[in-house]
C-alpha cells in the first residue's frame, strides 16, 4: 500500500529548474532515502512535498492530491517536515518546543504521554527540559526538531540532513533514536542525507538524484553493492 | 563595578517614575477642581497679595517648537521687565509681580490637557498657548472648572464665542478677519478686478475664503472667475495654477498654509507668464523664507496682512516699542536670538493686554479677571501697527480682529491704504 507517491515532479526557483521530473514512492510504514550531491534537488523534493515550494507534476498522499496545498494544510494531513537547520524556536523552552509540535492535537493526555516518549527517546532533552532551545547544542537541537515532529503524530516524516554539522558519534545517536522511533511507531519516512552510510542504517530503499532527476533507484542492499554508489557516497 | 552602578541608575529611574505619579498629583491637593468655585470674593488659586501666577501650555519641542517657544518668551519678557520695575498695581490696590509657569505639550492635545490638569490649581489663569487642537482639548474642562483660558494663539473662532466659551478668548485674528481685510481693500478699489481663488481644503482655507467673500459681497467691480482647492497633503498644485492662469484673473487670492507649495506656486505662475496681484495669509508671507525664493519681485503686488511691527525691519529701527522689546526679550524672556516668529511679538502684546486687565481687576478672583478682560476697547498694545488695536467687547471676535493690508516692497512690507 503506497502512502506517498511522486510522479514527474518539477520545481524551479525563478528561472532555475531545480526538479525536472522526480518520482518517488513511499509505502505505508516504509522509509525511503534520497541521495545525491549538493544541488541535486534533494531538499527541494522535500519542500515540494510539504508545500513550501510550488511544484508541478503529481504528488499524492494516501491517495489524495496534495500538490498546491499550503504548508499548514499539508501538515494537518499528517506530514511532518523536519527542515534542514532544524528551525527550533530559540525563545521557547524544550518542553514548549515539544508542545508546539502538538499544536493541532486535542488529546492532552496523549500529548503528555508523547512528550514522555520523546524524552525517553532522547534522554539528553530530558535533562534540558526547561532550558531555552537556543541554549542547546547542535545535536540536542536536532533531537528537539525530530521530537517536535513526533509530537504532531505524523504518518509521514520528512527528514532533511539530520546529521548536518554534528560530530559522528552524535549523528549516530540521532540516527539510532530515529531508527528506534521507526520500529516502535511505524511512521513512514523520507530521508535526505549526505552521509549515505548513515542513511542506509535507516531506509529500506533509496533513490539517487542528479540535477533534479532520478538516476538510480533500488533497495538499500542493491545500492550498497554498486561501485558508483560506493565511490560517490560511501567513501570508497 | 560598572554593572553595579548601572542597575542602580535603572533603579533610580524606576523610583523616579513611581514618585512622579505621586508628585504630579500632590500639587493638586486642594480639590478646587472637584468642589467647584470657592466662596464669594475669596481669592482664586494662583494669586496672593504680592504675586499672581499665569500658566501656559504650548509646544516647546517638536515641529512647532519655534513659534511655541515664542509664545512663552514674549509674555515672560514683558512681565519680567514689569517685575523688575516693582510689579503691577492691580485694580484692588495691591501691587503684584507676575510669574509664568510654562509646560511643553509638543502639540499633543492629550498632553496639553494633562498640563492643564497639572496647572489649574496653581495658576490664576491660563494664557498665550499656541494651537487649535491643543487648546480645544481642555476647553470644556476649563469651562467646567471656571479657569480663564484667555489671549491664546489660535485662529479658531470657537474661542471668541462668548456664549460657547465663557471662560475663553482668542488673541490673534481669526482666518476670516484676514480674508475680510483684503476683500475690503479690493472692494474699495476704483477699478474692476477678476479674482481667482485657490484655497486649502480645510477650515483654514474655508475661513479665509469666507471672510474674503463676505467683504466683496455686493461689490460690482469684483468678479470671482475661478475657484479651486487643494489638499494640505498635496505635493504639487501645478495643475491648479495652470488652470487658474487660463482664467486670466488679475488678482489671485491664495489661502495656502504650506510653505513649499507657496514657493512653487509663485514659480509656476511665472513660468506660465501669469503675474497677477497675489494675496497670501500672514503665516505664509515671510519675505526671506518664501517671497525671495519664490521670485516674488516678478509680480506687480504681493499682499498680506499684519497687526504687529516687524522688529527687524529698518523702518522700525528707531521705534521705541521695538527697542524696548528687543532689549527685554533676551534679558527677561530667555530668548537670546532675534525673534524668528511673529508669535514673540504677539506674546509680548498679550503681556501688555493682561497688564491692562490686571489694572482694572477689582478683586483677586477669576470672575473679576474675566469681567475686566471683556471690557478692553481700542487698546493700542506696544508693537501694534497703526490702525490696529486690542478690543474685547465685541462678541464673536478675538482680542485682535483688526489687521492692516500690507504690500511687499522687495525687502519687507509697507501698509497700504488702497489697492491700485
Amino acid at each position: 500500500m503506497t502512502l506517498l507517491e511522486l510522479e514527474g515532479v518539477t520545481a524551479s526557483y525563478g528561472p532555475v529548474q531545480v526538479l525536472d521530473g522526480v518520482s518517488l514512492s513511499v509505502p505505508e510504514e516504509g522509509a525511503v532515502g534520497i541521495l545525491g550531491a549538493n544541488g541535486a534537488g534533494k531538499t527541494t523534493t522535500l519542500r515540494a512535498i510539504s508545500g513550501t515550494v510550488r511544484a508541478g507534476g503529481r504528488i499524492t498522499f494516501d491517495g489524495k492530491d496534495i500538490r498546491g496545498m499550503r504548508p499548514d494544510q499539508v501538515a494537518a494531513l499528517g506530514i511532518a517536515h523536519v527542515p534542514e537547520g532544524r528551525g527550533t524556536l530559540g525563545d521557547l523552552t524544550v518542553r514548549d518546543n515539544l508542545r508546539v509540535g502538538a499544536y493541532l492535537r486535542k488529546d492532552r493526555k496523549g500529548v503528555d504521554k508523547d512528550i514522555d516518549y520523546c524524552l525517553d527517546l532522547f534522554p539528553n532533552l530530558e535533562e534540558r527540559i526547561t532550558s531555552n532551545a537556543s541554549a542547546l547544542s547542535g545535536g540536542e537541537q536536532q533531537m528537539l526538531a525530530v521530537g517536535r515532529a513526533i509530537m504532531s503524530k505524523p504518518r509521514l516524516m520528512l527528514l532533511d540532513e539530520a546529521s548536518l554539522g554534528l560530530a559522528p558519534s552524535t549523528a549516530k545517536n540521532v540516527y539510532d533514536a530515529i531508527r528506534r522511533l521507526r520500529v516502535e511507531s511505524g511512521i513512514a519516512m523520507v530521508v535526505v542525507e549526505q552521509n549515505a552510510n548513515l542513511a542506509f542504517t535507516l531506509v529500506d530503499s533509496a533513490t539517487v538524484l542528479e540535477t533534479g532527476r532520478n538516476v538510480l533507484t533500488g533497495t538499500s542492499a542493491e545500492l550498497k553493492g554498486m561501485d558508483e554508489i560506493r565511490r560517490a557516497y560511501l567513501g570508497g | 563595578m560598572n554593572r553595579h552602578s548601572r542597575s542602580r541608575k535603572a533603579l533610580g529611574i524606576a523610583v523616579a517614575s513611581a514618585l512622579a505619579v505621586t508628585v504630579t498629583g500632590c500639587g493638586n491637593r486642594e480639590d478646587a477642581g472637584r468642589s467647584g468655585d470657592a466662596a464669594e470674593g475669596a481669592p482664586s488659586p494662583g494669586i496672593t497679595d504680592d504675586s499672581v501666577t499665569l500658566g501656559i501650555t504650548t509646544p516647546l519641542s517638536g515641529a512647532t517648537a519655534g513659534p511655541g517657544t515664542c509664545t512663552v518668551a514674549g509674555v515672560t519678557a514683558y512681565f519680567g521687565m514689569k517685575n523688575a520695575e516693582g510689579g503691577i498695581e492691580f485694580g484692588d490696590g495691591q501691587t503684584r509681580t507676575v510669574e509664568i509657569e510654562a509646560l511643553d505639550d509638543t502639540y499633543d492635545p492629550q498632553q496639553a490637557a494633562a498640563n492643564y490638569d497639572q496647572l489649574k490649581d496653581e495658576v490664576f489663569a491660563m494664557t498665550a498657548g499656541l494651537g487649535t487642537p491643543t487648546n480645544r482639548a481642555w476647553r470644556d474642562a476649563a469651562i467646567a472648572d471656571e479657569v480663564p483660558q484667555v489671549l491664546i494663539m489660535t485662529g479658531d473662532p470657537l474661542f471668541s464665542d462668548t456664549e460657547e466659551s465663557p471662560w475663553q478668548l482668542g488673541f490673534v485674528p481669526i482666518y476670516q478677519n484676514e480674508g475680510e481685510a483684503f476683500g475690503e481693500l479690493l472692494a474699495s478699489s476704483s477699478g474692476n478686478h477678476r479674482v481667482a481663488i485657490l484655497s486649502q481644503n480645510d477650515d483654514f482655507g474655508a475661513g479665509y475664503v469666507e471672510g474674503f467673500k463676505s467683504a466683496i459681497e455686493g461689490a460690482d467691480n469684483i468678479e470671482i472667475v475661478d475657484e479651486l482647492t487643494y489638499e494640505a497633503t498635496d505635493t504639487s498644485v501645478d495643475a491648479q495654477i495652470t488652470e487658474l492662469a487660463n482664467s486670466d484673473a488679475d488678482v489671485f487670492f491664495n489661502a495656502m498654509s504650506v510653505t513649499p507649495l507657496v514657493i512653487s506656486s509663485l514659480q509656476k505662475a511665472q513660468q506660465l507668464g501669469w503675474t497677477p496681484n497675489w494675496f497670501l495669509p500672514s503665516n505664509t508671507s515671510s519675505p526671506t523664507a518664501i517671497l525671495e525664493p519664490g521670485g516674488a519681485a516678478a509680480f506687480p503686488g504681493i499682499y498680506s496682512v499684519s497687526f504687529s511691527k516687524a522688529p527687524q525691519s529698518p523702518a522700525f529701527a528707531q521705534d521705541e516699542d521695538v527697542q524696548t522689546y528687543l532689549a527685554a526679550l533676551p534679558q527677561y524672556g530667555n530668548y537670546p536670538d532675534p525673534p524668528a516668529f511673529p508669535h514673540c511679538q504677539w506674546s509680548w502684546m498679550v503681556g501688555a493686554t493682561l497688564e491692562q486687565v490686571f489694572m482694572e481687576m477689582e478683586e483677586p478672583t477669576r470672575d473679576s479677571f474675566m469681567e475686566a478682560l471683556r471690557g478692553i476697547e481700542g487698546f493700542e498694545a506696544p508693537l501694534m501697527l497703526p490702525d490696529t488695536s486690542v478690543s474685547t467687547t465685541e462678541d464673536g471676535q478675538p482680542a485682535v480682529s483688526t489687521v492692516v493690508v500690507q504690500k511687499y516692497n522687495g525687502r519687507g512690507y509697507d501698509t497700504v491704504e488702497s489697492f491700485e
Partner: protein
Amino acid sequence: MASSPKTSSPKTSASKTSASTTSAPTSSATTSSASSFRQRPWVRWGAPLLLVAGLAVLPLVMTEGANDTLARIGVFAVAVLGLNVVMGYTGQVSLGQIFFLGLGAYVTAYGVQSGWNIVLVFVLTCLIPAVAGLVVALAAARLGGLAIAMVTIALPIVGVPLAKRLSDFTGGSQGLSARFVEAPEGSGLYDDQWQLYLVLVIGGIVFLMTSLLVRGKYGRAFAIVKGNENVASSMGISPYRYKVLAFTIASLIGGVSGFLYMVVVQYTSPETMSFGHSIELLVAMVIGGAGSIVGSLLGGAFYVIVPDVTNAIDPSLTALLQGALLLAVLFVLPGGLVSLPRALMRRLRRSPAGRGSAAPPTTPSSTPGSGTAAEQSETERQGHA
C-alpha cells in the same frame, strides 16, 4: 504558555519534592522556597484579590491629579498592549497602532455627539477599528516581512489628512469634543474618580482577556509564527491567518484604548493620531518590555509619566531629556523595565558561585522552580550513583 505545571516524568517530580524538602545547596534553596511560597493557594488567590481591592480603593484616596495621571496611564497601557499583541507576541512590526486609537476615539466622539446609546458606541468602538484592522491585515500580511511595517506606516500618515478632510464626521482640524463621562448622580463620586473606575474596569478586562489569549493556544501559535514561520507551517499553523488575527486583535484593542482616551481626555483631533505618537507608542512598548503583559503597563506609565517628569525638570528640554532617558533605559535594561527584577535577581544570584542561573524566573512556561529542580535531580543522581 504550557499551562500545566506537571513535571515531565515521575523521576523528576519526585526529586523535585525532595529538592524542596531535603537540604539543598544554598544557591537553589532560595528559589525553591520562593516558588513554593508563590504556589501556596492563599498566595495565588490572595495576591490578585488584594490587587483588585487595592485598585478599587485607590481612586477614592488619591488626589484628582493622581487619578487623572493613572487614568491616562491606563489609556496608553491598553494601546501599548494592543501593539504588543501584534508586535511583541507575533513579531510583526506595526507602526500604525495610534491610527486605531484615533479611529476608536473618533467613533466614540461621533457616537456620543449623535446621542447614541453608550453601550452601542462602545461596541462600535471595538468593531470598526477591528474591521479596519482586518481589512488592512488581509492585504498586508500576505506581503510579509517589512511590507507590513510599510503598510502600517501609511495608516497614520493617511489618517491625519483623512480626518481633516472628513470634517462632517471628524470636525476637521478643529476636532471633536465629547464630555460624556460624568459620575452618576447619587454615587457620591467625583468625575475623576468615576473616569478612573471606568478605565480600571474596561482596561482591566482587556488586560485579563489578552493575558488569557497570549497564554493560551492562540498565544502559542503567535509565538510560533514569531519564532519561525516555516516551523509554524510545518506544524499546521497558517502564519498568514495568525498574523491577520493578531493584527485584528491589536486593532480592536487600539479601538478600546480610543474609547478610554475619550473617557479621560474627552477630545480628539487629527493630532491625536499623528505618526509621531505611533513611534512613541512603539518606544513605550520596547521600554516597558516587548511581549509582556506587565511590560505593557510599564510602557503606558512611561508614555504618560515621562513628559510630565521632563516638564517638571525643564520644559524647554523635554525632547532632549526624553531621548536621554530612552537611551539610558535601553542600555541598562535591553529587555525593558519589566526585566528589572530579573536583572536584579541575576546579580543577586551571581554573588555566591552557584549554578542556579539556568532558569530565568519569568520563563513563560512551567513553574519557576522546576528548572533548578531538574538540575537538582541531575546532581543528586550523580551524587548517589
